[in-house]
Structures are given as C-alpha cells and as structure tokens.
C-alpha cells in the first residue's frame, strides 16, 4: 500500500509536470514543469526499487542519483541559455 502511495505520487507529479509543460509557454515555467516531471520519475523509480521482503535494488537508486545530477546541470544550462536569449532579444 505504501509503495502504491509513493509510486502513485510519482505518477501524479509526472502528469502535473507534463500538463504544465504542454500548456504554459514561458521558458521558465516549462523548465519548472520538466523538473517536476523528472521528480515524478525519480519518485517512481525509488518506489519500484523495493519489492516485497527483498532488500531494495541498488541499481534504480544509483540511476536516480545520476539522474538528479544530470537534471540539475541541464536545468542550469537551460536557465543560462534562456537568460542569454532574453538579453539578445532586448527583453521583449
């Protein structure tokens, strides 16, 4: 039950992020939405790593650790690109 709660929360986060990503146009909102989608995926991976009585599977844990760092660096790069775009367009 707890596992469904964690996994379900991941699915809800993913769906919310996907919806916001598709509906809103500003780059910053899309970035935040993408990050929320990513959080949902990480949530789900962690929830699914533990199955029944067995000890949790370390491979999804390692995947999530890797994913968080890549997501953070990609977000930072996207933010820098967005700021540069805005500067070049004169703020519109």
């Amino acid at each position, binding site marked *: 039950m707890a*596992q*469904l709660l964690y*996994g*379900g929360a*991941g*699915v*809800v986060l*993913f*769906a919310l992020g*996907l*919806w916001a990503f*598709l*509906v*809103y146009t500003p780059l910053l909102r899309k970035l935040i939405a993408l990050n929320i989608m990513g959080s949902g995926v990480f949530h*789900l991976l962690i*929830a*699914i790593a533990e*199955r*029944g009585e*067995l*000890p*949790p*599977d*370390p*491979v999804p*844990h*390692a995947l999530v*650790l*890797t994913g*968080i*760092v*890549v997501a*953070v*660096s*990609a977000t*930072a*790069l996207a*933010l*820098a*690109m967005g*700021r*540069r775009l805005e*500067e070049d367009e004169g703020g519109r």
Partner: protein
Amino acid sequence: MKSAGGLVIGAFVLLLAIWLLWVVQTAIDIGAGPRLAEQAFAGLPATGVSNPVTAVLLSYRGYDTLLELAVLLAALLGIWSLGAASPGFQAAGAVLQGMVTLVVPLLILAGGYLLWVGGHAPGGAFQAGALLGAAGVVMRLAGDERAGLPPLAAQRWLVVAGVAVFVLVGIATMGLGAGFLAYPIGWSKWLILAIETAATVAIGTTLAAAYVGGRPWSHADVSGQS
C-alpha cells in the same frame, strides 16, 4: 493559458495518469521479477565498499559515472560560454552574515562526513558535492561574487578534477594489466575513495559555479587572460 486547449490537454494527461497508475499497481501486484540486485549484492565483497549503491556507481558502472561527471563539466562549459556572470548580490546584513559564517563550515563538515560514510551507508560523492554546492549558493546569496570559489585558474582545475582523477585511475588500472577502471582487489576501496573525493570537489565547484550563472571574469580581463 488557452482554456479550451488546456482542457483537452488536461483530459489526455489525466487519462495517461490513470493508465500509468494502473500499470504501477499491476507491477506492484506481480512482485519482484528477475532483477540486478542479487548480482549487485553477490559482487559486493570484491568491491571494497559495503554500500551497494556506491558499488553500482563507482565499481560496476564506473563508466556511467565518469560520463556523468563529463556531462556536468559540459554543462558548466556551456554556461561559461554564454556570457559573463551578473554582478553579485549586495552584501548581507549582520544577521544573514552571521548565519552564513555558522552554516557554511557545517555544510562543508557534513559534506566530508557524507563522502566518507558513502562507503558503507547511504552517502557518497553526489550527496557531499550537493552540500558543497549549497554552501556556494548560500555564500553567493550573502553577497560573495564568486560564491566562495577560488580565482578562475584554480576553479578550472577544481572543475575538471573529477573527470581527470577518474580517467587517470582508469589508465593506471589499464597499465596494471586489468581493464579500464577494473580495480585490483585490495586497492578497490582506496581507488574508489580517491575518485569520490575528487568527484565531490568537482561536483561542488561545478554546482556553485553554475549557480553564479556565467563566466566568472569580465570581457576586460579576457584579453589579458591566456
């Protein structure tokens, strides 16, 4: 947001979410199928660390972690190539400054602890690096223009330290006759610790430098730089 389009998209996303929830429920009901965990636990004594996550990250899948550090480095190079950083925030008041002088050493201490504990319990280079990066963010918010980082020449070395030590260890193990990043048993723990230490410093520096958000030197300095 356009109301009609938003509603249609919302309906589709809702359907997708319900379907995904059903998939998750089914997957949980079926229970554990064949998984990599058993192999990961079986190989653990040979890796010199007792935390299986660290073993996956730095022993079994060392390549992936090396490439991940390269992704971090590439992202920072991208940020640096997009322009100069905006000037720092104004200097902090007495209260914030007091908090910073208290919190930053604690963050560094906790980072060191997490780095060491990663060998046998949850922790490791990424968590420790994230704490160091957070220390940099706090310092930048308190008005330090460089987020507590050393001058540019040193920053460059720190940022490549993770990838560099990783590759050097890999080449050294190749020289010993084993494969790239195939640690000899007995040395494994210390090689992993060396890589993790360098990776911690590199991740912390990269995250703090990424938060600064641009090249840490102005155009005037560039002509005199290299």
